[in-house]
């Protein structure tokens, strides 16, 4: 079984071809293509037009890389939400057109579900597992019980974690994209402990019984520290210390919130060696990976973190989610609509299982 996947729900235009034996036959993301590097990348692609300009080329490229024609496909999958509606519609309509022209099944994919199913593509993971999804637009603790069946255990009440990274980096005078630059800068801090004392930051939500996050106040606290520093260009050492303290605060909060989820998961599900999956663009942060690896180990979990290329937005995960649904006989009519809001919990029909 071979499925073409298309992703246009946010900044990335992407197309990929996946086979049901977990082979990634091709996986193209526009901003990673050589010819676009010359222009310094194409972020952010607010306009649907930008997706429209590149999608045909990307689909052709993905098919060529895979070495197949449309006649070899068993289905076409596209992100139909949640996301920026104009962009979503471009990818969805392209997929529907191919499906209609070639009489292929069309599969409408929830972008968040595709992230949640990625560890089954990369690590052949069995259900159920616990998932922390952290990106520029999302921050959620989920349990994946089965295809279409997810429990939402916690989420951010305000800013997403990746957004908090980007905005805090900007406050520190670091270039875009802020997340990676902040991480590199924090690594230059000579004395993390002293840095955390010097630039004390809050731990929003720490200690609360539920599993929600709040990052807006942390950004404001970073701003207060920056305002107290001498005016003009910030000193490298100061920024390194502040970045380090910021990252430690994030790790502290993630560990606190997740430790509750790990305990709840162990109580609710019986699995041999439970897995904690880290997904989303923020999963590229090595300090966070290290903090969660030790948290997982201390609690008898193993940490599964798909490679960065499959953690951030991509179409391989969309094609894979298509395969998961197609295997179960789930396909969608061509009149299905794009959905700007599409919470994962709404996919599930069961309501009496553990969790919310």
């Amino acid at each position, binding site marked *: 079984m071979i499925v073409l996947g298309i992703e246009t729900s946010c900044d990335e235009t992407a197309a990929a071809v996946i086979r049901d034996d977990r082979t990634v036959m091709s996986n193209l993301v526009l901003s990673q293509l050589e010819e676009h590097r010359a222009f310094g990348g194409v972020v952010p692609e607010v*306009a649907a037009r930008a997706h429209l300009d590149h999608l045909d080329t990307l689909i052709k490229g993905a098919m060529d890389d895979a070495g197949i024609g449309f006649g070899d496909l068993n289905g076409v999958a596209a992100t139909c939400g949640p996301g920026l509606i104009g962009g979503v519609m471009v990818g969805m309509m392209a997929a529907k057109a191919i499906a209609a022209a070639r009489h292929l099944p069309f599969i409408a994919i929830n972008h968040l579900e595709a992230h949640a199913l990625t560890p089954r593509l990369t690590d052949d993971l069995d259900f159920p597992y616990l998932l922390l999804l952290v990106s520029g637009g999302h921050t959620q603790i989920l349990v994946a019980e089965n295809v279409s069946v997810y429990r939402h255990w916690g989420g951010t009440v*305000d*800013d997403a974690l990746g957004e908090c990274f980007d905005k805090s980096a900007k406050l520190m005078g670091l270039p875009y994209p802020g997340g990676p630059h902040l991480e590199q800068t924090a690594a230059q801090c000579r004395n993390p402990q002293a840095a955390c004392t010097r630039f004390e930051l809050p731990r929003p939500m720490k200690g609360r019984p539920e599993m929600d996050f709040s990052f807006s106040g942390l*950004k*404001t606290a970073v701003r207060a520290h920056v305002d107290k520093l001498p005016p003009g260009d910030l000193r490298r050492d100061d920024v390194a210390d502040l970045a380090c303290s910021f990252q430690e605060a994030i790790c502290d909060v993630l560990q606190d919130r997740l430790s509750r989820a790990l305990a709840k998961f162990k109580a609710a599900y019986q699995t041999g060696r439970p897995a904690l999956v880290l997904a989303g663009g923020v999963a590229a942060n090595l300090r966070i990976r290290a903090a969660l690896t030790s948290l997982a180990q201390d609690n008898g979990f193993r940490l599964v973190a798909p490679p960065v290329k499959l953690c951030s937005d991509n179409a391989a995960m969309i094609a894979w989610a298509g395969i998961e649904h197609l295997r179960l006989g789930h396909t969608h009519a061509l009149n299905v609509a794009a959905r700007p809001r599409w919470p994962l919990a709404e996919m599930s029909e069961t309501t009496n299982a553990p969790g919310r």
Partner: protein
Amino acid sequence: MKNVYKDSMKWTSHSEAETARLAARMATNLMPGDMLCLHGALGVGKSVFARALIRALAGNPALEVPSPTFTLVQTYDTAKGPLWHFDLYRLQAPEEIYELGWEDAMAEAIILIEWPQRIQSLLPPERLDIHLSETSGGGRLLQLDLIGSKKDMSL
């Protein structure tokens, strides 16, 4: 505090809770067609204000109000009609706003905009500008300016 102001007022908030109360009070006067523009630096409290206003309009103090930075706009159904919450931080050209359903929003909704300066040339002549800034004591100064309207501002 006086009840009615002409077309400009200043207000100092000493806490997030106080800012939220002011936002909630302003929500009661809003109608579809009204536009609120929130100005101010990163971390000064635009989102705190927006969140409180949206929750008050929706009549749900626990409503999840995610930051629209990533999706650029989030829409809500409220008792007074639809509310569109824009965050134009990531916009690169003013015209990109039309890709986000701007004309629909203008026609039917209460509009709340963070980073409105990104579309300065396209802002309608009638709106309420709110400038947030930090005071020396760590509080927040809210400067409210009613632009282009004959109405009084009542709070």
